[in-house]
């Protein structure tokens, strides 16, 4: 078929077209990541790019920045043919890309990361650190980000690292095209709003942005047009204003999706399985208490840095605690390591899949099996490979993990599929308490539903789940009860019936007035400077 895009652009249209992708194809061993891909980006617009996990979105972005070279097809920038030789070339052409996987140097500071390769110099060879930090401070100030120039990036949370990436991309004066690959995967609603503001400020009649996301709600808010791809092929481009999300999703997954209703019944009749009392840590947590019942999904809501992750890590013994007690089925337990937690059948899925979740250099099979190897797939210390592989394949199918085989190296999977692998690992291990920290981060809508279904099934079968999520709709939809945290404390607990956006956000932004010192420690601005803008 001849798409209008394939016609030679008229000179008028060429001025309008900032970026064009024509008939691009790219294969990896065993995978056709892209075939006959098309895309046009007009000046002054935000183009959303959506597709299921593994559809080829990130691959396209890597082609655009010259990290990969296309097997077929060509690119045009403002009507000129463009064959990127590398990131530097892309940048010179005015294209800035925030990749899905962070490209940060954890041992360098925020300022050093932002201006890497463009350091202000003195006497040619010496670094002008004063100037560097001044510029970084200026930029951070302008973008209103909760960062400090001299913070070491490796010590920042995922969300803040994402902000460093954003600051870096926006620090180029010459950027005409800003491409963001799932920039909000690690951000909560407030930060998403800030980012959208930044994007709106960035987009002028001369510039444009490509925005990749799995969060359907924000497409409506931020994009002008939506390009849908499926299985590496161009499917359609829709005007955001004239289409519904249903249209988008059905093109994405090629079928209609049904959504289950949110749970209504509070399971007060069930016995308490895990009880946490007065949990405190040196860094952040103060007197955190809550109960988790059998068969319950307990949501944890809060702003970034509220301490939800830290609660989870403390419970499984990944971080030391300085006070508090945890009881399991009424008996006090002392968990000093994740291995001990696993022995008590408590599992933790980390929010940071790259650092704490995946064995990147191992294959899918090894990643899915690692937690359950000892108790389910071994005898006398020997691994029973066959049943292990059968199970792996089963989960690959169930979660629709897009991979040529279970022996594919995890590193070569798309971001969303990596996340699915980590989830499969914990679904396979027979845990009584599962703590899922941002489980659907980077996962497409279709599979999200599948995961929700699996979580509900688990709960039905009597397992207890703690679900930490920065996506409020998800928390509201899935949880029987919701614990809300702010600055290391529990500020409230809501049942599914009581909870809505407003009530949760109110609790999440409640600030314990008596200790500004804590806020300082977290690198947050003191309370008065951050108005409660969300409700």
């Amino acid at each position, binding site marked *: 078929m001849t798409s209008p895009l394939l016609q030679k652009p008229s000179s008028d249209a060429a001025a309008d077209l900032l970026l064009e992708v024509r008939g691009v194809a790219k294969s990896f061993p*065993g995978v056709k990541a892209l075939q006959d891909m098309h895309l046009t980006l007009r000046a002054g617009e935000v183009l959303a790019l959506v597709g299921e996990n593994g559809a080829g979105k990130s691959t396209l972005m890597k082609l655009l920045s010259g990290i990969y070279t296309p097997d077929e097809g060509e690119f045009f920038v403002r009507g000129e043919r463009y064959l990127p030789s590398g990131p530097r070339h892309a940048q010179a052409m005015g294209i800035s890309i925030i990749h899905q996987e962070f490209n940060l140097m954890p041992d360098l500071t925020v300022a050093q990361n932002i201006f890497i390769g463009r350091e202000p110099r003195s006497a040619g060879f010496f670094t002008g650190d004063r100037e560097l930090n001044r510029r970084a401070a200026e930029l951070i100030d302008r973008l209103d980000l909760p960062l400090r120039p001299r913070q070491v990036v490796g010590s920042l949370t995922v969300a803040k690292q994402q902000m460093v990436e954003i600051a870096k991309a926006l620090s180029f004066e010459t950027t005409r095209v800003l491409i963001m690959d799932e920039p909000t995967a690690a951000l909560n609603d407030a930060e998403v709003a800030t980012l959208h503001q930044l994007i709106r400020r960035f987009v002028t009649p001369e510039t444009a942005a490509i925005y990749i996301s799995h969060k359907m709600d924000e497409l409506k808010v931020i994009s002008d047009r939506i390009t849908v791809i499926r299985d590496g092929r161009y499917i359609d481009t829709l005007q955001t204003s004239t289409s519904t999300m249903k249209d988008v999703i059905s093109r994405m997954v090629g079928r209609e999706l049904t959504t289950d209703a949110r749970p209504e019944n509070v399971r007060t009749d069930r016995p308490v399985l895990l009880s946490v009392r007065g949990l405190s840590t040196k860094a952040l947590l103060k007197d955190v208490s809550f109960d988790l019942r059998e068969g319950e999904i307990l949501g944890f809501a809060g702003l970034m840095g509220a301490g939800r992750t830290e609660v989870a890590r403390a419970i*499984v013994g*990944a971080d030391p605690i300085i006070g508090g007690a945890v009881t399991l089925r009424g008996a006090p337990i002392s968990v000093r*390591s*994740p*291995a001990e*937690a*696993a*022995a008590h059948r408590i*599992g*933790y899925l*980390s929010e940071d899949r790259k*650092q*704490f*979740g*995946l*064995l*990147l*250099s*191992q294959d899918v099979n*090894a990643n899915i*099996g*690692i*937690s359950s*190897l*000892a108790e389910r797939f*071994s005898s006398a*210390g*020997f*691994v029973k*490979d066959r049943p292990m592989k059968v199970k792996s394949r089963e989960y690959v199918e169930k979660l629709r993990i897009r991979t*040529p*085989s279970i*022996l594919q190296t995890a590193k070569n999977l798309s971001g969303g599929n990596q996340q699915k692998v980590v989830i499969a*690992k914990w679904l396979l*291990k027979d845990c009584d308490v599962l703590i899922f920290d941002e489980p659907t981060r980077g996962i497409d809508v279709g599979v999200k539903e599948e995961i929700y279904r699996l979580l509900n099934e688990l709960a039905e079968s009597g397992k207890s789940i703690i679900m930490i999520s920065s996506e409020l709709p998800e928390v509201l939809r899935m949880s029987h009860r919701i614990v809300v945290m702010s600055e290391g404390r529990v500020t409230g607990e809501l049942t599914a019936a009581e909870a809505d956006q407003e009530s949760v956000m109110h609790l999440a932004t409640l600030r314990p007035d008596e200790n500004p010192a804590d806020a300082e420690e977290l690198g947050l601005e003191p309370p008065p400077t951050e108005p409660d803008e969300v409700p």
Partner: protein
Amino acid sequence: MSTAIAPVDAGPRKSSDLRGRLEQLLAFAGLIVIVVFFAIANENFRTFSNITAILFSTVVIGILALGTTFVIITGGIDLSIGTGMTLCAVMSGVFLINWNLPLGLGLLLTVLFGGLIGLVNGFNVAILGLPPFIATLAMMLVAQGLALVLSNSAPIYFSVLPAFSEISTGEIIPKVPNAVLVLLVLAVLAAILLGRTLFGRYTFSIGSNEEATELSGINTRKWKLIIYTVAGLFTGIAGIMISARLGSAQPATGQGYELQAIAAVVIGGTSLTGGKGSIVGTVIGALIISVLNNGLRIMSIPQEWQNVILGLVILGAVYADMARKRTT
């Protein structure tokens, strides 16, 4: 491509298995090229007795390399294997000659002593959290000193115990020194350990991402302790093999063996950053080194040139292997 869905599942699996095997076979390529070159260049090289001589000379380094493969796959390093081996050799002398223990018991204690060295390394690395380089460097120095102290700086001779030397130089299979069999058996054992057991799986996953492994509910400290201990057991066996070969425990040898063993492991394709490696590779790496040494000597290359050529050939072999992997 689109022939059918049914074979798609079985097909790629089998073919990738086959490809994997082919790759392993091809990994021999560098080694085979070198062997063929020497075999053509010099008739004395291709005699049966010279082949066994090459294998024999691979034994000690090979055993050390086997054990340290596990450590390197975790992303660690073990510098103590060279002098640790020497200390174990001295201990075998202490057990068998000074204390006059029965052969079997003496051997067992020696191997366990090696395990103890490894355990201490493991404790320092896994429990105290010291960098493996420092922990094992310290052990290297300590073992070196203790070997001299415990032997009074003099070799301990096993002349009264001919059975001991038989472990290395005896020939259960005619014309093949037992040492070669020991290496073979240990290599098979190590391959099973690495490829088929939980121990092996956890070795890989610790090397791939220790924090993720820990958060997957695996007691990484415990396993690292075990991994270093296993490396120590191999050190103990190497100590026995070298003193059995020499008929004496030489308290001053050993330094430098660690580098050769690590080199064998790395030439064999195991990555020092962890997460990747194989026993077959390690054996090939060890063989490459000893074939080169042997061949260059047999060809009477002047000794000052031998190292130069050795270095260049190692570069070439590893580069060729990498280039091959890149193209497939």
